[in-house]
């Protein structure tokens, strides 16, 4: 099959050259190919007049649908298709475009296209497939699906931000880079060591967890012990973010790079929505991880301890919980989940040293919307943000979709500063 395609393409290319050369040599002409749904339409009369109405020439489309009229010089010409000569069942797609004004340039031929369609005797073309309101709803569905996909990734990142904030009070501006780092760890395993992405991913998540643990153990923890203020730590996190981001730029360059597997997969249709198998699998993994973390937070000893520390570190400490240990576990887990989010982002989109930074504000929006420091709020907030960002492009230009989310973030803080699920007294 592929061979046939190549052959056909080569044939087309050859045809193109054959056709192009004479025009190149002979000077100016008007030409075109009449087709209806891929089938050539022959026997159709085309007449050409000069800009001031003088007849220049005529042609009739051949068996291959092609026609050509030589013109004496560059200039403006009127090209008319005689609708009476169209075969039965074939009409002009746009009835008012039987005559076209065409500019011919010096030394070049000029192609002219008459769009044809199947139609009844009245000449009304049957509507092309997939137009109108159904296309609109298809787009809404597509965007909602994209929103869910984005929201899940944001949620994975936001979970870490929220837990780290809850347990340590730190608003970590380097969290976006934790996504990027995770994605690039997997890239190294995948690309340099040649491991399949399905193997590289869990390994990368483990390495990311180690990175998070180490960061807390050797950096943030000691800083807290030095009684470094929270504002100070926030600015330090910015320094860390810059350092990590440009370290990745240094190591991997600024180009967009893909993983070895699952690049440019063909779309599959899922009801009204187009997606790729890898997106579905990624979403499945994301949902599974989110549910697992949610259950762990709710039911396991460790999860309960984490929430206790999040609620009140002093009280948790006094009731015998090892706060430092909990914080280290939270960092390890938060970084691991962020790394996973990065890998998923890299798989469904592409890897770039700025990929994490680009979603950082969306993660913050998700966390804030849900209420700083409440893990479940962060999940809900992130999904809302993801959906909102994508669906809003129906009304606002796509490049402003982030603006929409950020504006909503500010408005939410104005009316309900504690977020959707936050408690009122948490605000200073």
């Amino acid at each position, binding site marked *: 099959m592929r061979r046939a395609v190549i052959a056909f393409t080569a044939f087309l290319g050859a045809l193109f050259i054959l056709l192009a050369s004479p025009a190149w040599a002979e000077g100016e002409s008007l030409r075109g190919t009449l087709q209806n749904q891929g089938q050539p339409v022959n026997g159709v009369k085309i007449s050409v007049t000069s800009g001031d109405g003088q007849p220049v020439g005529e042609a009739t489309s051949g068996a291959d649908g092609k026609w050509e009229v030589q013109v004496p010089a560059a200039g403006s010409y009127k090209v008319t298709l005689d609708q009476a000569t169209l075969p039965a069942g074939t009409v002009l797609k746009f009835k008012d475009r039987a005559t076209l004004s065409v500019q011919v340039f010096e030394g070049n031929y000029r192609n002219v296209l008459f769009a044809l369609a199947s139609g009844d005797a009245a000449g009304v073309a049957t509507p092309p497939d997939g137009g109108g309101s159904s296309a609109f709803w298809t787009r809404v569905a597509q965007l909602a699906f994209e929103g869910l996909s984005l929201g899940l990734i944001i949620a994975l990142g936001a979970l870490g931000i929220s837990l780290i904030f809850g347990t340590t009070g730190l608003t970590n501006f380097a969290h976006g880079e934790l996504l990027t780092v995770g994605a690039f760890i997997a890239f190294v395993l995948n690309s340099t060591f040649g491991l399949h992405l399905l193997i590289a991913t869990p390994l990368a998540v483990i390495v990311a967890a180690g990175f998070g643990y180490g960061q807390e153990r050797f950096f943030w923890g000691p800083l807290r012990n030095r009684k470094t203020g929270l504002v100070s730590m926030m600015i330090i996190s910015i320094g860390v973010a810059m350092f990590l981001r440009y370290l990745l730029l240094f190591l991997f360059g600024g180009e967009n790079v893909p993983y070895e597997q699952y690049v440019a997969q063909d779309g599959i249709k899922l009801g009204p929505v187009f997606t790729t198998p890898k997106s579905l699998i990624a979403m499945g993994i994301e949902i599974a991880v989110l549910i697992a973390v949610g259950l762990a937070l709710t039911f396991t000893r460790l999860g309960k301890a984490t929430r206790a520390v999040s609620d009140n570190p*002093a009280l948790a400490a006094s009731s015998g919980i090892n706060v430092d240990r909990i914080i280290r576990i939270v960092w390890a887990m938060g970084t691991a989940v962020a790394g996973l989010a990065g890998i998923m982002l890299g798989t469904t989109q592409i890897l770039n040293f700025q990929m994490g930074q680009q979603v950082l504000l969306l993660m913050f929006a998700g966390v804030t919307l849900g209420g700083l420091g409440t893990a479940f709020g962060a999940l809900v907030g992130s999904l809302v943000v993801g959906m909102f960002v994508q669906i809003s492009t129906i009304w606002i230009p796509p490049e402003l979709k982030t603006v929409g989310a950020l504006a909503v973030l500010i408005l939410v803080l104005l009316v309900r500063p504690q977020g959707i699920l936050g408690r009122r007294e948490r605000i200073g």
Partner: protein
Amino acid sequence: MHADTVNRKAEALAALASVPSEPGAPKPDPILVVDNVVRRFGGLTAVEVEHVEIQRGSITALIGPNGAGKTTFFNQLTGFDTADSGAWTFNGKPMNGVSAHQVARRGMVRTFQLTKALSKLTVMENMRLGAQKQRGENFFRALFSGLWQPQEDEITVRAEELLERFKLGAKRDDFAGSLSGGQRKLLEMARALMVGPELVMLDEPMAGVNPALTQSLLGHVKDLREQGMTVLFVEHDMDMVRDISDWVIVMAQGTVIAEGPPDTIMADARVIDAYLGAHHDAPLTTAEAEEQLHQAEAELEAEIEEKA
């Protein structure tokens, strides 16, 4: 201006003599009247005060066990927190919805349980900050020192007088952060006086102060009354109250459960129940637990601040 000490106290006692010892009792000359103030956190009611009046020119103590909602109630009255419902008047003017700084400008000035002496400013700067209607606090006038310097000098003179009175004159140019806990309390009180208040609201003025200084602090509180001001102060230690207050209001679980002269209150069974009950019998409500937590946290923070 300096009236006889005995006189002021006697006046206040005389005015309150005919007031019945029951929650919400009307006073002959109330400066502050509170009606149905309610504050809820989530589903928990932290404050639910039906009716309270504060007698002008008196020292009124607001006591209650930990978590009784005293500080929350204070916060409602001074605009630092928004009440869910209720109304209160100061000098007959409605005060609900009035923002914290407006409350202060109208003559109701408070201090805080955890002293908020601005430790990175000098003692004198702290004092000057309290003065009202400063011309130099306008951005454009601030650019021209000639426009505000004369007023600043007047303010400095007034501040120096107050500092002398509070025995802080020697510390004039020290950072407030270098003062001891008790001195900070004194500074905060002196600074509050710079505002020129009619009603001084002190949140646990004796908390965290070493016993030697307590008497001096109490003296200053009494002195406020002698200066013609009304004092409302929060305290959770009953014994501390007996000496200086003219009237005591008792809160427990967010409501006023008793009020009356100190001696009457000390003997009141409901009050003793409330104190003992809260500590020993009944399980803590979540609100109380939270209140306690807040206090624990606050104390911890204070400790950290001390060390820093």
